Structure formats: structure tokens, C-alpha cells
């Protein structure tokens, strides 16, 4: 039975190579997702055709021949009932296990990913590379390298969808979501917004350019040089006066941020929180919700004073302090 399923899906995958029936598969997970898709297609067509043909055969074979015909009574058949309850259940269980393990694998970004930041707003995509390059509605990435996108929205819910990579994730206001992919083929691929977001939802399109690593480096350093996200973040940090409380040696009114990223901290309420991107964003926007133990609740909110892009740059700066610290201490 499994063999039938597998050969069926292989057959289908060979049959549906025509580009107009199958989207390009350009990421490391695309083939796996497609195999599952073809297996599901095979099961769907198999059962649909089986049911339709059985009905058709019965309709013809048992058509009413006389107006007063009374057909014989058919015995109820418990083994049959159980069979067609249990077999679908087993098929469903098999599909669930396959789909879930694939999903598990596909959800975990490899540790050494290139990080790129995405801000969705009505009705365009702002992409920010850590090296400082910014793009609008375009995403340049190197081939063969895992890329992790950290995303947020300035306004309503959007959704970042690259069909060729088989990846999609909602982009939410007020928090970060992430997705990762590893492109396997150089080329140009569609980027769509897949969550209705208002008037120009259908125009919130973009292109993903997958380049060889060498070309990507060239591309990154071409154009007008711009400061990296961490450098811009440092400028914002100083301009907004963060530096006056968050002294690096810890003697200021606020905690030192030098080694804080990635650490677990204890809040005044006793709760323990990991200092990640979401934590830093919360600290900037709603500081009274994440006051650390032993510190007063005097940090003002910066909601309205910084946009999402600036928050990401501040986060990049704080992260850079942690990695500098690690490098300095030879860890």
C-alpha cells in the first residue's frame, strides 16, 4: 500500500513537470513539500475516482427496471464499516506524521543563517540587510546559504510568501515573526503578500533575486556605501539619549546593555525572560512591562518616536555589543 502511494507520487511528480502545472522548486525544502503534495494529490484523485466510478457502476448496474421493484435487503456489515473507518484513519495518521516531521524540519533554521530584516507596510516591503543595504520590494540573497528573515509590520497583518521556496509566514504588527529558507537555484522568483491588507494588497509584489555568493558580495558592496544596521542603531541610541542611562559599565540608572543579548534576565515580577529581539522591542515600546529586578521603573516609552526599522537597527546594535564582548573576552 505504501509502495503504491510512493510510486504513485513519483509517477505524478514526473508527470507534472510542465511549468504551468508546477511552480519552480528553488529551495532546499521545496522537493520535500512537493513529494507530500503529490502523495496527497494521488490519494485525492484515487479516492475521488474510486468513489465516482463505483457510483457510476452501481447507477448503471442497479438502475430501476420496474416501477414497483423492491430490492433485497442488504445485511449490515460491521467488519466492512470498521475497515473503512480504520483504513482512512491509518492513512490520515501516516499523512499527519509525514507532514508534521517535514514541518518540524522546515521550521528550524540552521544555526548559522544570514539574517535579513523585513518590514511590511501598506503596500510595500522594506528589506534591510545587516550590512546596511536597504531594498524596497526586492530581496537579494546568496544561493546555497540559509537565510533567516525577521519580520514585522508597520500597520496591518501582511504575509511574506515566496511560492518557489514553498515558504510563507504572516507579518504581524507589534511583534516579530520569522521564516528561513535556503535557495538552491540562481534566478528570479515571485514574492507575494498573501494576507489581505487593504486596497493595494494585490500590488504588494516583489522579486527575490538569488545570486551566487560572489555576485551577492559584489552586490552588497556596490551602490552608495551606507552604515551597517548596527552602526545606524548606535547613532539612534545616542541621539535618543539611551546612552545617558544605559552606561556600558553598569553605573547608570539603567542596566548596561553590553552583554545582555541572549542572556536570561529576571524581571521585577519574578518572571524570567530571555533577552531576544522581541524583548528588546518590548523594552523600547512598553518599558514598564519588562522592568528588571533591582532597577526602577523610570524608562519612558519610545512608541511613536521610533519606527519599526529603527527598532530593528537598535536591536542590531545591542546584538553587536554582545558579540563584541564575546570577541573581546575570547569566548
Amino acid at each position, binding site marked *: 500500500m505504501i509502495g503504491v502511494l510512493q510510486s504513485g507520487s513519483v509517477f505524478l511528480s514526473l508527470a507534472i513537470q510542465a511549468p504551468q502545472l*508546477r*511552480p519552480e522548486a528553488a529551495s532546499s525544502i521545496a522537493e520535500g513539500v512537493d513529494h507530500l503534495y503529490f502523495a496527497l494529490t494521488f490519494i485525492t484523485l484515487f479516492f475521488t475516482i474510486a468513489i465516482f466510478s463505483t457510483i457510476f457502476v452501481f447507477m448503471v448496474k442497479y*438502475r430501476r427496471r420496474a416501477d414497483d*421493484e423492491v430490492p433485497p435487503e442488504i445485511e449490515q456489515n460491521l467488519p466492512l464499516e470498521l475497515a473503512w473507518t480504520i483504513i482512512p484513519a491509518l492513512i490520515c495518521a501516516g499523512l499527519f506524521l509525514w507532514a508534521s516531521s517535514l514541518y518540524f524540519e522546515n521550521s528550524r533554521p540552521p544555526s548559522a543563517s544570514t539574517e535579513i530584516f523585513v518590514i511590511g507596510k501598506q503596500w510595500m516591503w522594506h528589506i534591510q540587510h545587516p550590512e546596511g543595504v536597504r531594498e524596497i520590494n526586492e530581496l537579494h540573497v546568496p544561493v546555497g546559504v540559509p537565510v533567516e528573515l525577521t519580520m514585522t509590520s508597520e500597520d496591518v497583518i501582511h504575509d511574506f510568501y515566496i511560492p518557489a521556496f514553498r515558504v510563507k509566514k504572516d507579518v504581524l504588527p507589534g511583534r516579530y515573526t520569522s521564516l528561513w529558507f535556503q535557495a538552491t537555484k540562481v534566478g528570479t522568483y515571485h514574492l507575494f503578500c498573501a494576507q489581505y491588507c487593504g486596497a493595494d494588497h494585490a500590488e504588494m509584489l516583489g522579486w527575490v533575486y538569488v545570486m551566487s555568493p560572489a555576485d551577492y558580495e559584489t552586490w552588497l558592496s556596490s551602490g552608495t556605501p551606507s552604515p551597517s544596521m548596527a552602526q545606524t542603531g548606535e547613532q539612534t541610541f545616542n541621539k535618543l539619549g539611551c546612552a545617558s542611562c544605559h552606561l556600558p559599565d553598569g553605573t547608570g540608572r539603567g542596566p548596561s546593555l553590553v552583554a545582555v543579548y541572549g542572556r536570561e534576565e529576571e524581571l521585577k515580577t519574578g518572571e524570567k525572560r530571555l533577552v531576544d529581539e522581541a524583548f528588546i522591542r518590548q523594552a523600547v515600546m512598553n518599558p514598564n512591562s519588562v522592568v528588571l529586578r533591582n532597577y526602577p521603573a523610570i524608562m519612558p516609552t519610545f512608541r511613536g518616536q521610533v519606527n519599526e526599522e529603527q527598532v530593528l537597527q537598535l536591536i542590531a546594535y545591542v546584538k553587536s555589543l554582545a558579540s563584541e564582548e564575546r570577541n573581546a573576552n575570547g569566548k
Partner: protein
Amino acid sequence: MSTATLDVHEVPTGSRVNYLNAQYGVKSWLLTTDHKRIALLYLASITLMFFVGGFFAVLMRLHLIEPQGALVQPETYNKLFTMHGVIMVFFFLVPSIPATLGNFLVPMMIGARDLAFPKLNLLSWYIYIIGAIFTLYAVISGGVDTGWTFYTPYSSTFSHTSVVPTALGVFITGFSSILTGLNFVVTIHKMRAPGLTWFRLPLFIWAIYATSIIFILGTPVIAITLFLLFLERVLHIGIFDPAIGGDPILFQHLFWFYSHPAVYIMILPGMGVMSELITCFSRKRIFGYSFVAFSSLAIAIISFLVWGHHMFVTGQSIYAGLIFSVLSFMVAIPSAVKVFNWTATLYKGSISYDAPMLYALGFIGLFTMGGLTGLFLASLATDVHLNGTYFIVAHFHYIMVGGAVMAYLGGIHFWWPKITGRLYPDGWARFAALVIFVGFNLTFFPQFMLGYLGMPRRYAVYPGEFQVLNVMSSAGASILGIGYLIPLIYLTWSMRYGPTAGPNPWQAKGLEWTTPSPPPTENFEEIPVVTEEAYDYAHSRVTRG
């Protein structure tokens, strides 16, 4: 074949008092408490709403012939798909079978004179009408463009359209559902005729009962959700808008907690109709009665546990995804059981090809396909690729239109002689069934492919490479639209000019067929005593009446 349409033995309708002619005048209709008249009031209202919603769909499909849009501005297109969804879901599909066929048939099938609370039944209809007026007002006053799902913060803060009247309209109509469900549950529990035990009930009653459970438990939650949305929009309290401290995902949880079970409200009654049609037109007892009966209850219960599968890509935890995924697979199994049982009922039956049976057979095939494509979406790994695309649109239209609407039409045709005392032209009916089947598949099958290729839904314009499939879909839609108009014409015609029907033109089993067509106001002169199992075709002959 099925030419036994004229019955010369029956006394013509006009000379016998029945529920239609017992009283005349607008007041006797608008103040009626007769469940059969209320069913007709609903029939008229939801038919109107169906064609309004359908009109918007026609405009949408015409617009999508061209990649840059052929008909309207994107802002208008966004309103069209929203209003199509709101009207079709809340004002057509949810009430359709329960409020028309359910209202008419539940008392008759269980041998009662009316529902438990007839005045409440009339109130239900008025509440529906008031809700519909609010929503139609929203349509006329500029429309609403949030999608029928009203996701925040777009609907709470950003949209400049008539969100409030629409949300209020749906909120109000919800109470119509709740009262109808309450009425059915009490009636089925307390008013069955002597001898009519639970396991002798027609499966339509089981289906209506399961649907009513969902009405009762689910609808209040959407009511509160929409009311909170209304407050958010008017007072900006910050419940769903993250800019002022709210959680937009909470809205989605609350919304889908009802709206997923709602889709089972839309399909369960159709499954009930299926059991009636298949048994009558193969003249056999249903195969696996208790399996079919319990599967309705199982679907109703499990339906409350799967709402998160609409939210797999919102960033919810992987573990939540796993739980919702496994439950979503589980809810498919009782439906599969039904399909197999219906098919087995045909085995060695005596099958006739009347129009209701054609609708029933079409249902089984299309529902199978629609249901199985649900597995693509219950599967986490494929749902990531398919969510938010035309695959979803195709999936739910296969079930809602290929399934629920075909079941509804099949039921309307089946019980039409009972309801109106008239027969419709069978040739036209079968032709229309075929046109609808062909038009439907041509409209929606290409959409599966569009979705897999990556075309997102709710797009007013689209990249050119998707045009061929879009044009195919639009061509199908025009055929489907014509297909729906045909029954409207001949059914209306038959009310005046159709040959009169006897009490039982289909030689069907069931208490409703023991009454004259149309029935008298009190349904039964004497409450029947039930001694046989449901669908007992083998043991007692039914004379054609």
C-alpha cells in the same frame, strides 16, 4: 423513466384546505406561527440573498478575466469579495437547509404538529431580516472591504468602509441561528411521536440535531467577537489593535472558534439531505445507520477543536500547530465514513435518475474531492505553501458549493412536491443539475492549480502567467450562473402551472410523505405511531401517491 409525474387519483390541491390556502393575506404570512409558512418566508429571503451574493461573484469573475482587472477598481473588487463572502456565509449557507428544509420538515419527520416554540421561530425570521437589512444597508452605503473574516487591525482601525453596520448585521442574525438551534434541539428531544426512538429517526433529523448543537455553542462566541470589534472600532479601546496594546491574533482565535464549526453548520444538514435522497432513490435502507448517525455527532464535537488550522502561518507555536493538525485529520474520518456508507447504500439498490438523485450523486463526488483537499491543508508542511492562495478558495467552494449548495438544491427538488403540492418539469431539472455540475467543476478546478502555482487569494490584479486558468474559471462561472437561474425559473413556474402532486410522488419512506401535498396546517390529523425502522423499504411497500 421517471414519468410518473401526473397523479390522477389525487384530489386537486385547490379544493382541499392546506397550510398554503388556510388563510390569505399578508398579515397571515407575516404573523404566522406555522413552521411551514415560516420555512417559506426563509426560502424567499435566502433565495434573494443567494442571488445578491451570486451577483457579486459574477462581477468578480468577470473582473478577473484580465490580469490588470477588466471591470472595477481594486478598492471595489475588495468590497465585492468581502460582501460576497459575508452574504453567502452568514445570510445564505448558514441558514439555508436548517431554516428552510429544517423548519418545514423537522416537525413532520418526527410526527409533531409544530416546533416546540413556534413564536420563537417567527422571531428568528424577523431577527434574520433585521440583520440582513443592516448588512444590505452596508452594501448600499459604500460597501465593506475587510474580507468576510474581518481580520484586525485592518477592520478595527484602517478600513474606511461600512464595517460597523456589517458587523452589527451579522451579530444580529446570529441570534436567529441560536434560536432556531434551540427550537430544533428541544423539539427533537421532547416531541417525537410515540414509537419514534432515537435510532428510528431519519438521518436528516440526526444531522439537524448535530447542526443545532453547533448553532447553540458556537454562535454566541462570534456574537461577542463582532460586538468587541464594534466597540474597538467605535471607542478604540485597544482590544485588537496592537498600536494601542491589543492582540490581533486574539481576534483570529475568537473569530475562528465559531467560524470553523460554522462550516460544519453549512455541510451537516446537506449530509442529512443526502441520506434521505440516497435511500429514497435507491429504495433501500441506509447502510450503517448508526455509523452515519454517530458520525454527525462526532463531526459536531470535533469541529470545535480544530480552529487553529486557519492560523498555521501566524507564527503560532509548532506544538499548537501539531495539535490542531492531528485533530483536523481526525475530523475528516467521520465524513469519509458517511461517503462510504452512502455509496454502499447504492449497492444492489433500485436506482432512479430523478433530479434530486443527480444532485445527490454529484454531491458525493464533489464533497469527496473537497474534503480530501482539506487534508492538504490539515498537513502542516503543505499548508504553509497553500495557505492564503486560491487552493483554499477552491477547497471551500468544492465543499460549500459542490457540496452544500447541491445538497440544498437536491433537497428543494425532493421535497418541492410536498411543500408546494406541485411537480416541476423533470427534464429541465435534470438538465440544470448537469449544467451546474459542469459549470461548477470548470469554475473551481482550475483554482486548485492556481493556488499550487502560488496565486494568492483576494487579488484584484495578478501576474499574467495566471491568466489562462483565471479565464477558464470565469468561463465556468458563467455556465454555473446560468445553471442556477434555470431552477429559479422552472420552480417558480411550477408553483402556478406545475401538475399537482400526490402525497408521495417518489414512493419514499418517512412520516412527511404520509400527509397530503401540501400538508394541512396541523400536519397530522392524528399523531402517528411509529413501528418500523427508518428507511424500511424492504419490508413494506409504499404505493405511489
